[in-house]
């Protein structure tokens, strides 16, 4: 044989071998470790859930649920319209499909499912559902149920059109296409997206959501019941809303940072998890390669974590709000976050506030001395010793602002406080010459000077009114200014503040966390203390009887008795922003109804 022809034959054989291997390979269904691996990378976002079936079964058969449904709250729910509608819908599903809804759900969706969506120029919104079937029998039951439902709805036998995509069978029923690929059932409202999923399933392409860079930010942790992710920039209506200048300074102070993070966000993911001990909802904004713009730095300052707030919580708070901002930085750059009118109003406010601070320039000489954390604390008042508490009973509240050097810069705040009291006194005297004056009385808490306003109210009032809730007070500690509605709350805050040692120069700083906390039991308690007052308001507003009003409030209190607390946190981690909402539940072995 000629050497040239031998080489050619060998080359042909070599090439043929790989072609055949390729063909053989492309016919094999790939392993589906993650449903996202069979989801096209072009989707805008997707939602996925795992083990919802077993968790739902466990929930429905639990003794705790039974106790909950037998409680007064459960009975009230079962008599309501929502419960009746739910039962009717479940009955309708069973009638239409001939199968129990829970069995259907568990079989078809209960193990794992993913629902993805994208916008297409030609096909509009395309949706793809991938579900890992419990067992082959589940598909058969599902088909039977679907057929029964369609026959009941249309009155004609359910038939599908059989198609093929490169060897994979596809069926079409109306606008739904579906394919069975091993233990995965794929459904879509568009043939194109289904075919792309099939190509991924057979390894013909690797452009999956699971492998794509945007979705790579998603955590591998399985700590969720359901998780969704979205690329917001692909939704035109949303994209234009983020990062806009606001017309409200307070909103800007709260939200401009988040708005900016959304503008620079390439992936948004949310997760939900539930258990008998609580519900947690998380949202993460992953920024693009350029990261979160530097101009938003005032919204994400770094601080030294401390124990002040955790210690306060142990003293029994009703709630707290903690915000960390570089206030001076925000104020100085307000033009970047606010429209012209709102930025102008800040300038006017600065001039007015300078008056209160003894002529100091508010923006440059006062704000620059403020620390990076502002807190609002709420605490239920103690019960009156002689049994006559004010009504309504209003929780005490306090504003805490950190100061860089309170010894040096605390004085202007004391001046401002006294100025404010004087102005109020003068105004009241002008309106009513007999009006009692408010007096500022100095008090000491440890070594800290406090200033308590005496409203001049008669003592030992038989039926103390709303004004008896207030004894406005101010204190300046080592590094905080505390302004409270009552002296009791200011005293508590001063005590806790003085326990904290100042952070050393070598302390590690981290991105600060914004936090909102509400204690469910404290909330329930204050509602209970105000039951008669609130019931009277219901009588006026709804025209119902007093007993009916009290019963309505009792149902609310019963619902609250299951809530231990509510916590919302927002924080930055590198170039991602995390937001977490958690509701702690009390669903112990014994359900105790709240007493009045």
């Amino acid at each position: 044989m000629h050497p040239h022809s031998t080489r050619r034959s060998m080359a042909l054989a070599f090439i043929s071998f790989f072609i055949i291997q390729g063909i053989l390979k492309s016919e094999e269904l790939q392993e589906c470790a993650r449903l996202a691996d069979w989801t096209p990378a072009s989707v805008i976002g997707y939602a996925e859930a795992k083990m919802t079936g077993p968790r739902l079964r466990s929930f429905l058969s639990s003794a705790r649920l039974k106790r909950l449904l037998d409680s007064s709250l459960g009975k009230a729910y079962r008599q309501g319209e929502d419960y009746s509608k739910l039962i009717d819908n479940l009955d309708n599903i069973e009638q239409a499909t001939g199968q129990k809804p829970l069995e259907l759900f568990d079989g078809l969706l209960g193990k794992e499912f993913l629902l993805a969506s994208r916008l297409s120029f030609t096909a509009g919104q395309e949706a793809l559902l991938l579900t890992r079937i419990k067992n082959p029998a589940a598909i058969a039951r599902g088909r039977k149920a679907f057929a029964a439902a369609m026959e009941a709805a249309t009155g004609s036998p359910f038939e599908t059109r059989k198609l093929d995509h490169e060897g994979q069978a596809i069926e079409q029923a109306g606008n739904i296409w579906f394919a069975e690929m091993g233990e995965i059932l794929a459904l879509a409202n568009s043939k194109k997206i289904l075919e792309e999923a099939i190509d991924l399933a057979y390894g013909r392409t690797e452009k999956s959501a699971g492998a794509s860079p945007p979705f790579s930010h998603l955590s591998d942790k399985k700590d969720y019941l359901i998780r969704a992710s979205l690329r917001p920039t692909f939704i035109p209506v949303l994209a234009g809303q983020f990062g806009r200048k606001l017309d409200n300074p307070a909103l800007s102070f709260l939200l401009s940072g988040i708005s900016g993070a959304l503008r620079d966000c390439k992936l948004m993911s949310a997760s939900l998890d539930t258990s008998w001990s609580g519900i947690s909802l998380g949202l993460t904004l992953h920024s693009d390669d350029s990261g979160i713009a530097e101009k938003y730095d005032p919204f994400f300052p770094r601080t030294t974590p401390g124990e002040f707030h955790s210690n306060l919580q142990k003293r029994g708070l009703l709630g707290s709000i903690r915000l960390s901002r570089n206030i001076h930085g925000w104020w100085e750059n307000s033009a970047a976050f606010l429209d012209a009118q709102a930025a102008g109003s800040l300038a006017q406010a600065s001039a007015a506030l300078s008056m209160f601070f003894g002529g100091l320039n508010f923006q440059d000489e006062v704000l620059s001395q403020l620390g990076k954390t502002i807190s609002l604390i709420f605490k239920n008042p103690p019960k009156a010793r002689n049994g006559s508490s004010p009504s309504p009973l209003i929780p005490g509240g306090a504003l805490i602002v950190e100061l860089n050097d309170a010894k040096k810069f605390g004085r202007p705040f004391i001046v401002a406080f006294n100025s404010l009291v004087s102005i109020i006194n003068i105004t009241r005297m002008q309106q009513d010459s007999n009006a009692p004056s408010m007096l500022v009385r100095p008090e000491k808490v440890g070594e800290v000077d406090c200033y308590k306003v005496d409203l001049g109210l008669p003592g030992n009032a038989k039926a103390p009114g709303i004004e008896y809730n207030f004894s406005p007070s101010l204190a300046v500690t080592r590094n905080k200014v505390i302004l409270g509605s009552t002296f009791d709350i200011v005293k508590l805050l001063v005590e806790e503040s003085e326990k904290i040692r100042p952070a050393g120069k070598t302390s590690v700083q981290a991105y600060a966390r914004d936090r909102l906390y509400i204690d469910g039991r404290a909330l329930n308690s204050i509602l209970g203390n105000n039951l008669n007052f609130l019931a009277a308001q219901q009588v006026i507003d709804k025209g119902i009887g007093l007993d009916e009003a009290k019963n309505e409030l009792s149902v609310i209190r019963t619902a609250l008795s299951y809530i231990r607390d509510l916590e919302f946190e927002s924080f930055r981690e590198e170039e991602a922003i995390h937001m977490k909402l958690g509701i702690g539940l009390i669903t112990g072995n014994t359900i105790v109804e709240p007493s009045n």
Partner: protein
Amino acid sequence: MSANLTARERLEPFRPGKDGPWDYAAAAHLARRQAFGAPRELVEKILELGPRAAPGALLEELDETPEMEAVADSQRRIGSTEAVQTWWTHRMLRGNCPARDKLALFWHDHFATSDTKVKDARLMMDQVQLFIRQGAGHFHALLQSIARDPAILIWLDGNSNRKGKPNENFARELMELFSLGVGNYTEEDIKEAARAFTGWHVKDRKFWFNKRAHDTGSKTIFGTTGNFDGTDVLLACLEKQACGEFIAEKLFNYYVGTPVDGELRKALGELYHANLHSLSPLVGQMLSSREFYSAPARRAILSSPADFAIGTLRNLGATAGAAHLPEEMSRMGMDLLRPPSVKGWQKGKSWLNSNTLLSRYRFASMLGGADENSFRVPWGKLRKEGPNRLFKLFFPGGLDEKIRKVILEEAGGDLKLMVTAIVELPEHQYI
């Protein structure tokens, strides 16, 4: 009928069948005048009681319901003017004795005291509760109580009234507006009465007789000289014939509304004294008189904003929304707890001007148009009863057939539109 009768005859008891029918329309007429509006249950109760017994029965003091006690306590604790206004409008709307509140409203206008100067809503609430408690009792007791009321003393600068520097405000209003009326006293009487009231002060929100500030010298009042104090002055005013005529005429104008001539005025004074200054029987006799049930007295009084707004809601069976009423009534010209002057509100035709009329129309539109039903009107029940019952509710004496037809056609079966149209009618502006 009234033109042929003497004044005394006009005040004689109404005789059903002879002076006119005792029917649903007559009972509704009494309900509108003595309470607020003519809700069906009240009218049927009046029908059953009869014209003589009904007025007194409606004024009987009843125990407060737990709801009213709770509302009173909660609004007092809030202590703002708006809260106290809400309390009172809620009482008028939902209370078990609206006749007492209607009479209290009369005294609130008669002893006009404004929170704009008192600046203490709880004191105003105390004053209103005084009117509710004592308003149907003896006028002597009422006047004695109100003279020591902290709110009125603040309003009339009581604390400025001191020995050597008497402030005449209280003494003047006592004689001119509270007990005798113009022409029944002299300026000298006022000056001397002011001296008698020196030391009638307020301290710590309570009446306080400040001995140090009291003028113990001899005074001459109504031609009599003596070492008089405030109590003596009050008794002297109460004993004058003019007092009975003055008070009785004011009550007559409020409840009956037909013109009062000299003869009738005298007869009213005699009635007052015959009842030994007791207000419930006096009002009862006025409201059971032939004059009251005569044709000129029917729909003779232009409704005050309270009668208009609260009466309308009670007719419809509304149960809530008292918190909105003070503002609505203020737009119509009646800012509860804040009468415009010591003379109270200008009543009668003054209730209606271009602004206040528009406010009434706005109220009517709000009533019929709101989806949220903040007044909790039982629309379902009213729809079941139908348009004829609705017309009877508002016009038990009948309505011009043409007007009725136009309303039915324009509303096209929409009950809410019908209510708006009815409430806007000129006929509905009169009680």
